[in-house]
């Protein structure tokens, strides 16, 4: 699976290069905060909040083509649905790694 699939955003925005840059920048800026909110919810074992935050992150990252982040967020969402929070800590670690990999993949593209 790719860290960043450019095509996903390209299909949505066509030749709107300005939008492409703007949305990637916005995503990069806000995801660390989202991951921290999720980590906080995991610490508090707040399953409904974990589910909502993970769902949101899954959607946002899926839409910008951050496929690994989206996949990891999906696992966290599923775990919280099934009441299984044991793996959440481990998945959070993966999520941070996925984000670093994503940052690196887009660093060559973003202006």
């Amino acid at each position, binding site marked *: 699976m790719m860290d960043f699939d450019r095509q*996903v*955003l390209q*299909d*949505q*925005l*066509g030749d*709107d290069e300005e*939008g492409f840059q*703007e*949305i990637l920048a*916005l*995503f990069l800026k*806000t995801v660390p905060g989202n991951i921290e909110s999720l980590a906080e919810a995991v610490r508090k074992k707040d399953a409904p909040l974990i589910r*909502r935050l993970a*769902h*949101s992150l*899954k*959607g*946002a990252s*899926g*839409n*910008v*083509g951050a496929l690994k982040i989206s996949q990891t967020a999906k696992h966290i969402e599923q775990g919280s649905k099934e009441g299984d929070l044991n793996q959440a800590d481990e998945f959070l670690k993966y999520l941070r790694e996925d984000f670093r990999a994503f940052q690196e993949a887009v660093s060559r593209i973003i202006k």
Partner: protein
Amino acid sequence: MKTLIVEDDFVSRKILLRQLSKLGECDLAVNGTEAIEAFMQASKESEPYDLICLDIMLPGMDGIAVLKKIRVLEGQEGLNTPKRVKILMTTSLSDKEIVIKAIQAQCDGYLVKPVAQQKLEDKLKELKLLA
């Protein structure tokens, strides 16, 4: 074409805004309550929306509840099917059940995110919102 985009997630909101502002005027709402307010305000000013893109998963009042509420408000105004606003539900779920529930609650279709520009425009043509 005047559109209201209802999305709690900023990335989805921004993408739809970029896509739809090519095609006309757009307003934004981040939750169900704001969406209903925007809908009522636009109706009051006699500048109703042609299209509402409505996320199914919203915090608090969810998209289906918003959809139902808008149809009730339109009913009270005596607006029949051809006159009422076109509503497209947006979802990143491939959850059929929720989508079917939404269609029964009288929306005009749904879009599974990510929504390619071409797919969006095809849907709008189908709804006769775009020539």
